[in-house]
């Protein structure tokens, strides 16, 4: 049985991250991890006419670079799993339109990066596919206009707001031995602790992250010390301390081995309020930065928990609260392959 405990999958066959690629926009390029991304754009339009096309350009770049790195053609891929933040997942669907590959579209808001990776690994492990390509993207301007106000609107945002990352990440999962192995994944439950403020998504998502992480420890009978790093997607400066407190109450001390991608991608002097968010946040930080740290030998085993606020402006206007979800994937360095 590959299901361990209640929500955790163990990949019994060896499943690897064969290649990864990232593409980002201007603010991310200027951030502390700027040099670690594969493709960077100096402006939000990324050479396109609209924000939506710009987001598509980012995902397309990530997919292409990922295939190039893996020395494969698109026809070598069995399935494509992707998702983004826009209505009807337009970025993923329109990218898939140009790819001659069966496609599963996924939506988990900002948790999509690890949702696609976990399912891809399960497909490969179960023998349903040899190679699965995953991709996620988000764009600051497309997200602003869909979830908030027009980009040039002069409203004041509170410090608890997050800043959607402009970027895309792609990963190729296969049985071909590489430096990184995907060993386990914990699929999250939708958790809603009644937060209504879409400008404070850290507080809305922290309980979902806590739920998934706690369940992961219980299912695998592990504890925070078993991981070199536990990384959350985009809890930001508000949600991160809440997560640590929620887990402390459950008897798990995250202490120094917890980081949040939303706090890693930007410098503190960049105007991003509480930190970065969006599908691309966990994807580009994990694929662009954390894997490089693992390659260098600084990290051996990490647990990446991508957090998603399942936010809909219409539901908020109808006085609903914000449900949230978090999915976690365990990545390990393969000994002797570094």
């Amino acid at each position, binding site marked *: 049985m590959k299901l361990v405990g209640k929500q955790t999958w163990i990949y019994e066959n060896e499943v690897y991250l064969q290649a990864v690629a990232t593409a980002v926009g201007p603010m991310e390029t200027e951030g502390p991890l700027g040099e670690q991304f594969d493709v960077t754009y100096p402006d939000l339009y990324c050479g396109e*006419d*609209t*924000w*939506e096309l710009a987001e598509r350009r980012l995902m397309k770049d990530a997919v292409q670079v990922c295939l190039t790195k893996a020395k494969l053609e698109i026809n070598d891929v069995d399935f494509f799993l992707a998702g983004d933040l826009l209505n009807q997942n337009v970025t993923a669907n329109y990218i898939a339109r140009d790819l001659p590959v069966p496609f599963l579209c996924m939506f988990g808001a900002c948790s999509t990066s690890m949702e696609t990776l976990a399912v891809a690994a399960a497909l490969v492990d179960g023998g349903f596919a040899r190679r699965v390509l995953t991709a996620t993207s988000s764009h600051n301007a497309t997200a602003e*206009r869909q979830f908030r*106000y*027009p*980009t*040039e*609107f*002069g*409203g*004041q*945002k*509170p*410090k*608890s707001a997050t800043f959607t990352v402009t970027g895309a990440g792609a990963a190729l999962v296969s049985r071909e031995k590489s430096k990184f192995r995907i060993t386990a994944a914990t699929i999250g439950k939708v958790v809603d*602790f*009644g*937060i209504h403020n879409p400008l*404070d998504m850290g*507080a809305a998502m922290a*309980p979902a992250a806590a739920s998934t992480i706690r369940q992961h420890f219980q299912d695998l009978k592990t504890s925070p010390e078993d991981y070199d790093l536990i990384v959350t997607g985009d809890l930001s*400066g*508000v949600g991160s*301390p*809440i997560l640590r*407190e*929620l887990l402390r*109450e459950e008897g798990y001390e995250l202490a120094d081995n917890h980081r949040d991608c939303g706090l890693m991608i930007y410098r503190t002097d960049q*105007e991003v309020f*509480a930190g970065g968010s969006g599908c691309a946040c966990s994807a580009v930080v994990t694929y662009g930065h954390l894997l490089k740290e693992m390659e260098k030998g600084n990290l051996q085993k990490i647990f990446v928990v991508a957090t998603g606020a399942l936010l809909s402006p219409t539901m908020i206007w109808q006085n609903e609260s914000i449900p949230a979800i978090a999915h976690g994937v365990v990545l390990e360095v393969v000994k002797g392959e570094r």
Partner: protein
Amino acid sequence: MKLRDNYQEAVKIFQPKPSYFLNSLKAFFVGGLICVAGQVLQNLYIEIFTLHVSVAQQMVLGTFILLTTLLTGMGVYDKIGQFAGAGSMIPITGFANSLASAALEHRSEGVVLGIASNMFKVGGAVIVYGVVIAYILGVIHYLFWKLF
């Protein structure tokens, strides 16, 4: 009590407090500055073009709308808005920005279904309730005028 038992209340200690005093101060000065500029401009229009006060006032509004639209297009007004809050939102400049920003945002969907249909997306509520309130006040004013 555990954080999770009373989450919505207990979580407040983790949420950054808005600096009400500083924000009010910024709004007061920026809003005030816009009003002073309006008054100076009005006086100039009256002096230079020898306009009647009511005409000069309309000219000032027109000038401010034009300037705000330009600043919105140049990507400056949202930064002013983040700094000044209500200070730059309440004057006519805020309304002009809400229209211009929505128009800019939706130009990718064409001039009719994009710009025209979405232009009042943010500012529309101001017009609707402006008209409703004006109507109610008009009725009250009329009644008082008739009665007393």
